[in-house]
């Protein structure tokens, strides 16, 4: 299995499109760092404005932790596209190039092939998130230094002490990893039904956008379906930045994410076992 995963990783990293995510993250993070360095105080006055109308705020507001949080908040929405670019191509790419028939002539079960591709995709997602953490938090702290983190929610502002932030970032990135595995398994599932890569990639993004819109609208009808949408639970990483953590809520969301991964992988496995590779 490990050899298969290695082979799949070699295939992933041999494709130029796999580097789009790393380059995109580096460019976006660098742009945000430069913008924050030049005019960050003006930008964050938007965050502190309502508070400053009634109170004085003392201390270093613009710091590496805040800049990293702003970057994560901005990028976590876009990263599923970067993940789907790679994982949506895992089966359909082989089908499009005709290599899937060659692959199946090897003495490997279809189950082994599918799960090797999924785990290779998971390794890719992990490396992508490590890169994101490194450039956003690591370089952010180098440029702006440490400081208390202001977390903006729609009706509250939470201020977390600087020495209490690092583990929260790690935990947040850990939950983001599980969330992106949902995206990877979903695009892998769609990939099993497609003969080209564009379909699964676009469909994955379309579903994420649709679910996100449904999730952000306060309409009673949508309230009933929200708990079942994986996008509702994908943003639970932000709850790691509450002053008092709501452990049951976080646990429930993580379980829902794992449930989605298992469901998507099961459907993908079922369809891939029966997939006609001769057409």
């Amino acid at each position, binding site marked *: 299995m490990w050899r298969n995963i290695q082979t799949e990783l070699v295939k992933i990293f041999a494709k130029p499109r796999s580097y789009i995510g790393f380059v995109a993250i580096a460019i976006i993070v660098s742009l945000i760092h430069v913008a924050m360095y030049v005019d960050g105080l003006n930008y964050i006055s938007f965050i502190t404005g*309502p*508070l400053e*109308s*009634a*109170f*004085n*705020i*003392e*201390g*270093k*507001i613009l710091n590496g932790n805040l800049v990293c949080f702003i970057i994560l*908040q901005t990028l976590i*929405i876009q990263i599923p596209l970067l993940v789907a670019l790679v994982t949506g191509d895992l089966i359909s790419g082989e089908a499009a190039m005709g290599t899937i028939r060659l692959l199946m002539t090897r003495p490997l079960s279809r189950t082994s092939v599918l799960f090797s591709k999924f785990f290779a995709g998971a390794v890719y997602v992990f490396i992508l998130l490590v890169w994101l953490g490194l450039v956003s938090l690591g370089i952010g702290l180098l440029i702006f230094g440490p*400081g*208390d983190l*202001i977390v*903006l*929610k*729609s*009706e*509250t*502002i*939470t*201020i977390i*002490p*600087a020495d209490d932030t690092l583990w929260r970032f790690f935990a947040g990135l850990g939950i983001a990893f599980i969330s992106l595995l949902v995206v990877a398994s979903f695009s892998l599932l769609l990939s099993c039904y497609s003969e080209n890569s564009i379909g699964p990639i676009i469909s994955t993004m379309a579903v994420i956008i649709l679910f*996100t819109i449904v*999730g*952000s609208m*306060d309409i009673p009808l949508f309230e009933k379906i929200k708990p079942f949408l994986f*996008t*509702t639970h994908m*943003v*639970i990483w*932000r709850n790691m930045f*509450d*002053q008092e953590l709501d452990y049951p809520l976080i646990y429930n969301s993580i379980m829902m994410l794992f449930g989605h991964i298992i469901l998507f992988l099961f459907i993908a496995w079922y369809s891939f076992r029966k997939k006609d590779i001769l057409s």
Partner: protein
Amino acid sequence: MKKGSLLFLFVWMGLWAQGQSSPEAIKLLKGVTEKFNKVRDYQVDAVIDARISFLKILPQKAKVFYKSPSKFHVESKGIAILPKQNFDQLFTLLNNENNFMAFVSGAENLNGVSNTIVNVIPISDTSDLVLAKLWVDVAQGLIIKSQLTTKTNGTVLIEYFYGTWKTLALPDKTIFTVDVKRFKIPKAISADINSKTTQEDKNKPQKPGRIIISFSNYKINKGIDDKVFAK
């Protein structure tokens, strides 16, 4: 705000008719300022505990620096939320009799201590302060409570609790009570799509914000470099 302006107008007209401050009020305020005027400078450790409905923040340690007549600086390692009013602002105003008009408007018993209520109105029309209502403990010559009506920040209630340094009118604890508006920004901006606001939440009256500042380890009249205030 309108109420404050109207009150100011009536009180000012009354005093204008009299032409001067009440001698009793001036005598009381002199007793209060005399104590604080012995302080040329001080440095004190503070713990700032902001209790505001929409803000979740742990108590923050800070250092407060003051140098007469009006230099003031707060230094904290992390982010601290402070009231708009400096702790010394009132004394700066009260130090010059020509800056304000004052009169006694009554008496009130607070925690078993009889207090005289003094109303102070700044003469300058550019002053942010419209009216200061002071509860003065005559026996000890200390301001126990003050209600400041300002042009820009509404009304602020300040309660003073004295201990070790009451001889210099330096409090051990100060509680600021400030009116705050409801905080709300669109979910799309905060990326907070899971938050829910019920009708019950929307109808709840907004509680005033309280900032409790506890002071300890006063270092008085030891001299403070001006560079501290330039930070």
